[in-house]
């Protein structure tokens, strides 16, 4: 090689060497950046990669009746879980799995569809089937190698051990909704739900969800890229949920539900109550407010409402004690004053009385539910006093029972017609009527405008203009009359309210609290269903004491008169006479029947009029312990729809249905 060429090569290789060192320097620099400056960042990324937090679901607490019967528990179960990253599109795995599951809802196509639906969240495991039997578990385990991406996870299954018994009280679970998650995110609720959690939706399961659910535990697991666990790093054990011990008595509940169903079936056979479907009944302790039994019908679907706390009903004659209390307290009547019943009230709208024509004092009027007597004392007393005493017995406020979704009666058409409520209603009604007429007036104007525009001659136009003025004037006058009428309280309204009809409605739970307060001397208790919260070993975490909401401002004397008058209802000639005849003398039953006439369209057909039957009672009359309330929609009469159920419940509670007692009862009846 010539020297000149060698020099050229030397120069080129030197430049090349510089390029080499430059490139290597860039690589080393980048390496140093990643490994030294960004080491912390990538170290945590690597930790995130290999560490998986797995939830260990806490066992949800049991719900136990006051007589020690476990009504709801968590049972261990197994579920099939799919890793969608592996399973989706893998027809062999899906077909094998479908064959093992042998479920017509989970065919290979159906599973494929589920995988496809979840393709946007491939990393999220799919719970394909819950609660699989142990045989299926072992089949899947045995063929594990063919079922890549399919795994069996343990879970727990909420089990309602006695089917529908107390179903409305217990409630049910469901997957947490977006609305619930949003409320939590906004700080509106004090929950710690995560997506996919099962949470209480209604009833006790919802109200006590935070207590029942406990606290989930965690397992930190080291995994590889395929999510296969390599080792456990750390375990935080879950905290089991607490158990609820109810005030509700299983035996009494069973008797209540059976008697209610039996009576509904019986009512359906009668033509005047053949539409019976919906009913509510509740039994509470008079001196504590503890709920001993509660039933709502129908109960064939979990989503049906609990009518005891969610239904609002016109009380009918059940309300008459309030009218009487108001009249007695304000001195507008004495218990012995007699008022004549000529068949219907002598003031408009001349409401009929079903009681025989004659003179009535407080006791006989209550016993026979004479409408004239109560309209008259209501008229004397006035609506303000009636509203005041209704509120004294808790009819203007929600009961505050420990169940979710109690109807609070906040709409203008709901609740007790107190002064405030009447004003709210009148404001609303006035606006509605004004709007209705304004619309009519505008329509009329429009109509005439078109007519006048279409008219050909001047005379025609003048005639139309005159007609228009007339029509508008009539409408304006009508508007004035109707707005006035609907924004004023009328005497007739008072008469209606005095006998328990008209614009008022209450939940059966409110009625129970009211009737218990009459029985116990005026104490309004907050009804409650849970008496104790216990840990899983049975240790008591919290004991719930009765809560007094209010002491009614009513004299002992007045209450004694009312109690005495209610006894007349079950006595000879009373509206519930005969039902409790067989009870021993020391267990007398005080009661009131009611027949409500809701304005609903279903209540009047071409051939007949339907009514709701309302029944309240407490016993023993001289030492009250429990109170009963039932409402049967389309039940026709208060006594017929409620008294047989009440009788069964009282018999169970007082032990009157035991064989020995029945024998003596037979003797007693025979003697009579």
């Amino acid at each position, binding site marked *: 090689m010539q020297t000149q*060429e060698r020099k050229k*090569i030397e120069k080129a*290789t030197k430049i090349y060497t510089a390029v*080499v060192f430059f*490139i290597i320097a860039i690589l080393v620099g980048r*390496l140093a950046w*990643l490994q030294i400056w960004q*080491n912390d960042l990538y*170290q945590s*990324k690597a930790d995130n990669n290999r560490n998986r937090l797995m939830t260990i679901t806490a066992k949800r607490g049991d719900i136990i009746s006051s007589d020690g019967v476990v009504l709801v528990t968590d049972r261990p179960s197994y579920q099939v879980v799919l890793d969608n990253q592996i399973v989706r599109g893998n027809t062999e795995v899906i077909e094998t799995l479908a064959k093992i599951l042998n479920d017509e809802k989970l065919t290979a196509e159906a599973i494929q569809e589920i995988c496809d639906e979840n393709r946007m969240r491939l990393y999220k495991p799919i719970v394909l089937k819950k609660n699989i039997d142990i045989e299926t578990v072992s089949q899947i385990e045995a063929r594990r190698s063919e079922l890549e991406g399919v795994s069996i996870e343990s879970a727990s299954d909420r089990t309602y051990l006695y089917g529908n018994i107390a179903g409305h009280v217990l409630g049910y679970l469901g997957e947490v909704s977006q609305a619930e998650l949003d409320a939590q995110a906004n700080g509106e609720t004090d929950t710690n739900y995560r997506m996919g959690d099962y949470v209480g939706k209604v009833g006790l399961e919802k109200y006590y969800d935070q207590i029942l659910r406990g606290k989930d535990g965690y397992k930190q697991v080291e995994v590889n890229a395929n999510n296969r666990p390599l080792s456990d790093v750390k375990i935080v054990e879950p905290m089991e949920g607490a158990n609820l011990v109810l005030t509700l008595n299983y035996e009494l509940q069973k008797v209540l539900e059976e008697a209610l169903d039996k009576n509904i079936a019986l009512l359906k056979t009668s033509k005047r109550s053949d539409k019976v479907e919906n009913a509510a009944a509740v039994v509470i302790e008079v001196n504590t407010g503890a709920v001993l039994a509660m039933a709502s019908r129908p109960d064939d679907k979990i989503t049906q409402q609990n009518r005891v706390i969610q239904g609002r009903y016109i009380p009918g004659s059940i309300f008459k004690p309030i009218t009487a209390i108001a009249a007695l307290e304000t001195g507008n009547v004495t218990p012995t004053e007699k008022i004549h019943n000529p068949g219907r009230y002598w003031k408009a709208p001349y409401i009929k009385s079903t009681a025989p024509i004659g003179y009535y004092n407080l006791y006989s009027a209550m016993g026979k539910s004479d409408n004239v007597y109560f309209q008259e004392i209501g008229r004397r007393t006035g609506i303000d006093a009636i509203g005041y005493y209704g509120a004294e017995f808790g009819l203007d406020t929600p009961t505050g029972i420990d169940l979710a979704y109690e109807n609070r009666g906040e709409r203008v058409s709901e609740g007790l017609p107190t002064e405030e409520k009447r004003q709210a209603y009148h404001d609303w009604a006035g606006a509605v009527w004004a709007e209705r007429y304004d619309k009519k007036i505008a329509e009329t104007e429009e109509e005439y405008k078109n007519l006048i525009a279409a008219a050909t001659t001047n005379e025609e136009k003048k005639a139309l203009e005159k007609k228009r003025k007339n029509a508008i004037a009539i409408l304006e006058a009508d508007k004035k009359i109707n707005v006035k009428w609907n924004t004023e309280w009328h005497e007739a309204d008072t008469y209606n309210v005095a006998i328990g009809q008209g614009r008022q409605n209450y939940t059966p739970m409110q009625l129970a609290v009211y009737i218990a307060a009459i029985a116990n001397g005026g104490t309004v208790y907050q009804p409650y269903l849970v008496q104790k919260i216990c840990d899983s070993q049975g240790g008591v975490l919290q004991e719930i004491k009765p809560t007094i909401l209010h002491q009614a401002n009513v004299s002992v004397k007045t209450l004694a008169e009312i109690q005495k008058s209610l006894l007349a209802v079950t006595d000879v000639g009373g509206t519930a006479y005969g039902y409790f005849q067989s009870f021993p003398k020391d267990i007398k039953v005080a009661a009131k029947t009611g027949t409500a006439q809701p304005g609903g369209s279903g209540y009047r057909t071409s051939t007949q009029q339907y009514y709701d039957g309302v029944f309240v009672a407490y016993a023993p009359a001289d030492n009250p312990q429990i109170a009963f309330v039932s409402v049967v929609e389309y039940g026709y009469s208060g006594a017929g729809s409620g008294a047989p159920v009440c009788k069964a419940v009282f018999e169970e509670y007082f032990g009157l249905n035991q064989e020995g007692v029945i024998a003596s009862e037979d003797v007693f009846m025979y003697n009579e």
Partner: protein
Amino acid sequence: MNFYRKLIGKMDFILLAVIAVILVSGLLILNSAAASKEQAYVMKQSMWIVIGIVFLLLTIQFDYTILQKYVKPLYIFNLLLLIAVLIFGREISGARSWFVFPGIGSLQPAELAKIMTIICFAHFLDERRGNLNTLWELIPCFIFVAIPVFLILLQPDLGSALVFIAILVGMMFVAGANPKILLTIFGGGVSIILIYLLGVWKLGWWCPLKTYQLNRFLVLFDPNIDPRGVGYNVWQAKIAIGNGGLFGEGLGMGSQTTGSFLPEQWTDFIFAVYAEEFGFIGAGLLLLLFAVLLYRGLRIAMLSKDLFGALIATGVVSMYLFHILENVGMCMGLMPVTGIPLPFVSYGGSSMLANFFGIALLQNIYVHRQRLIF
């Protein structure tokens, strides 16, 4: 025998020592990267290393200049091999790049084609020395290399094809080709491609590549692209490297490696394993050793007794350099993702053989730099 011993004694021992250290550390890392695999990766790799050493020792006695006599048949053989693999090769992950001999192993002709092309192209350039000044004179050189490149692109194997371009540029530069034209063509080419890719990415320009192929380039601009495909690979490699820190997690202790988060960790992404387990100290040293290797190669080019030897040495260095830049750069998110192995470290027989052929050539050129006295 005495003569042979003399030849051995004249070899570049610094180069040999550097390669020995890279090989040993590479085997340790391979052992850890392939821990989850049942195959005897380390044994097979060691076998290829032994074959490479034997080849080196057997060929050292023949002066490389005799290769000049065989360049024509070698070039044709090279092309036939590349055509044959397109017809008889086995398609693996979408590319027809391998001959598979059941029970023996597989052969990747593109790896050997690099060495054969270097030898033939060195002779081609040697004959045109002094006549590489105009574009017109350079075009035949491009065509000479473009033919094997075209065949490799048919497989398709873009990574290997790029290696040929690096070899072409390196060799032509040392051969004295007009550096202005070289810089214009290749500097301009790289710039145009970058601008075009940006256009495809941001403005949705038309592109003949399939999305997954395109993403291998676009991941340079946006590491979050295709997070379940190529983006995932690069991301995991970066995590592994970053996780290594200064001192590394220790051999067999890298969580990214043992948890199989790293894809292709015994071949394309082995540098990430190296960096995770040996840390910056280990991986930085590896890059320095590569720098020394390349420097010694260029020194051999400079010391070569003729232009033919100098060009072969440059070609071999260019081949190594591009492999290192591309492989290490890809792991760190600096280069597009193309599956080419890291010299002497990645698992693979064909690549190891090709690398040893390169070393054999370098040592041969070094040993025979002066006429030996018999």
